[in-house]
């Protein structure tokens, strides 16, 4: 047991995986935080409207706020440290600086900076700060080799140093625990398994553009399958990712899962953060394999050579421009850059206090507009309680699959009203109207406030005249939806059978 523990945590390896996480995660974070720089004063400082996370927990004034210029200076320093961490210059100091500043700023803005992906990043930066992620693919390593006179020109695939692997293991365990916890959350949400929660999530417009998600919301039965696959994968990840045979399938499923969250839910940074952490699963064997593949592909297809040499080209650029960073002049440069950033931000005049036309004015509302905003609506319109009216012959996981709207005499089909909570207790009626809008059949039921749907089973009478009909749904005696169906005569086979 002890030996297994030691081998798992204290094996000495070149930390390729951690080095790749060290490169990828700061890059993603730079993209994410870069666009927040110009509003740092507004969202992180006492000169603006910060939104400390601790306030949500009832801990007011939990962490002191910086004033505007100081917040801008520290935020600029954070961006610079992200860059130095990415290239591996003064890696340990950069990582600690990033961890402290990143966690501080995310804690001060729970509205537009702090999300669960920020938490994931904070954990990863903490573990990077504890690690020797500079042992390979870093300026620190290159400068060390140069000092020893062992460096071999400008090579990205330079030899690494053997270090204890425990921070990398903790990062791998961490992402597994995150998935396990996410699965527990889904288990706490019964409507996750019925696809209802997923469907509403696909229709939510608080994340980026997600047109495929909107299309997928039309096929709720399919969502049930995805829901189960996702939760099974999340539970198994932390147990199976260590197994040589299961490692790649687990990671591949993870890549598919997170890519789907981008396509269907509009999440962008979250998947990139997770992919950065996935890099920590990279081993020395993987690196050797990729090198071989790259060489073979480059030799076979010269066009690909430029692509396969891309990492080396980038590293050559980095080493050319950053390899000769000396401590004192570089720190001086960073201080100057921070001072410049504070001046530029001041000149930008975020609040327009020094505009020639004076300070900003508030927009005046007409009495009608004001009345519209200030009216309270406790009653929901009947039609707003309905999400969809689905008609079909098949049900999967309690949801009707709408494959056709043409039914033969004697067929059975379902009419299902999918509802949006809160809808209260509802009296629902389902009528069948003929082409002249005469009611020829009616049935009803009660939907309790906790139900997400009500299903009417319907059997087409053998004597019903073929033609076009309409299924009409009423809620509390008010029509809220109708759908056209076609009834055909019995098929030749059915007639023969009769």
């Amino acid at each position, binding site marked *: 047991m002890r030996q297994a523990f030691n081998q798992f945590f204290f094996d000495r390896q070149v930390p390729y995986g951690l080095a790749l996480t060290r490169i990828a995660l700061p890059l993603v974070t730079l993209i994410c935080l870069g666009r927040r720089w110009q509003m740092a004063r*507004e*969202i992180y400082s006492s000169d603006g409207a910060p939104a400390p996370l601790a306030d949500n927990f009832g*801990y007011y004034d939990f962490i002191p706020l910086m004033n505007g210029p100081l917040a801008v200076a520290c935020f600029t320093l954070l961006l610079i440290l992200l860059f130095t961490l990415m290239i591996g210059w003064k890696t340990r100091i950069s990582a600690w600086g990033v961890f402290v500043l990143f966690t501080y700023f995310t804690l001060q803005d729970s509205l537009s900076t702090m999300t669960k992906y920020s938490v994931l990043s904070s954990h990863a930066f903490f573990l990077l700060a504890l690690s020797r992620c500079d042992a390979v693919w870093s300026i620190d390593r290159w400068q060390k080799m140069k000092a020893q006179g062992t460096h071999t020109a400008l090579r990205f695939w330079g030899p690494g140093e053997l270090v204890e692997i425990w921070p990398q293991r903790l990062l791998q365990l961490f992402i597994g625990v995150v998935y396990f916890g996410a699965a527990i959350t889904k288990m706490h949400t019964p409507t996750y398994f019925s696809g209802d929660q997923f469907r509403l999530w696909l229709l*939510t417009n608080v994340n980026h553009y997600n047109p495929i998600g909107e299309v997928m919301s039309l096929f709720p039965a399919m969502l049930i399958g995805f829901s189960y696959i996702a939760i099974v994968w999340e539970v198994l990840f932390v147990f199976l990712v260590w197994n040589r045979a299961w490692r790649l399938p687990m990671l591949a499923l993870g890549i598919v899962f997170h890519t789907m969250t981008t396509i269907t839910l509009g999440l962008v940074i979250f998947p990139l953060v997770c992919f950065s952490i996935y890099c920590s699963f990279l081993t020395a064997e993987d690196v050797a394999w990729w090198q071989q593949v790259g060489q073979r592909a480059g030799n076979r297809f010269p066009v690909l050579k430029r692509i396969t040499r891309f990492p080396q080209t980038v590293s050559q650029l980095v080493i050319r421009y950053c390899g000769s960073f000396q401590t004192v002049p570089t720190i001086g440069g960073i201080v100057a850059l921070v001072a410049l950033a504070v001046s530029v931000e001041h000149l930008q005049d975020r609040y327009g206090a020094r505009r020639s036309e*004076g300070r900003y*004015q508030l927009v*005046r*509302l007409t009495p009608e507009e004001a009345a519209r*905003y200030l009216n309270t*609506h406790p009653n929901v319109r009947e039609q707003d309680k309905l999400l969809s009216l689905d008609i079909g012959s098949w049900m999967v996981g309690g949801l009707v699959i709408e494959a056709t709207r043409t039914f033969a005499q004697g067929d059975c089909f379902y009419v299902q009203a999918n509802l949006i909570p809160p809808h209260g207790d509802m009296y629902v009626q389902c009528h069948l109207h003929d082409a002249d809008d005469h009611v020829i059949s009616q049935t009803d039921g009660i939907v309790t406030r906790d139900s997400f749907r009500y299903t009417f089973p319907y059997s087409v009478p053998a004597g019903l005249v073929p033609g076009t009909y309409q299924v009409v749904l009423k809620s509390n005696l008010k029509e809220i939806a109708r759908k056209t169906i076609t009834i055909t005569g019995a098929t030749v086979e059915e007639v023969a059978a009769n």
Partner: protein
Amino acid sequence: MKRNAVVCLIVCYLSALGWGIVSHTLSFGNVAHPAMYYVVWDMFCGWSGYECRHHLIAQGESGEYYKLTPNPWGDFQPYGPANRIDYDNFGVHSRRIAENVLRQTDHEPMRRVMLVEENWSKRYNIPDYLWTRMYEETKSPHSYFHTRAVYDGNCNPVELRNSWVAAVESHQLTSNPNLVQMRKQAQPIYALTSPSTQDLERTASMPPQSTGEILPASYQQRTP
């Protein structure tokens, strides 16, 4: 020595992650402290059936109404089409946003500031080309407004309310005549005397001075 410190660190770190899982699973202490946000993984904690946006409205001393959002200098949309204030699900941080807008703009003295929720059914988020495939009726989006909080002219809270969804749920319950009737007949009790030592009915019928103890209001009302 260094190895022992590292083992200790590994154990502490994994214990913290483990505590997050246990706490979240059993809903025990999972929101006790801001630090719990770092070990609880509730990324799918539920989405409403209604899309929600927030507006800040101010009423000046003259009676005129003003719009405080979007910010006059441009709002920040961090994750998509929604503005920063729209992510204030608990209505906790809007006060600071209002305060900042009032501080940075020219305006008359304000009498009060209101945080208003705008909600619409998510079915209306379905784009038109899919709507026609899914529904035969025409799309008629409708927004429900709800005043979530009222602040005074200095943005101090005067009145805080539940979200619109919670308010509707509450309204649906309280507008049920049977429930209202039953609630009217209910007698809330808060027994201060131990039921094991004294008969409840007897205690209830006793005047407070005869027991030497404090009786709940509901018991006192029932005393002849």
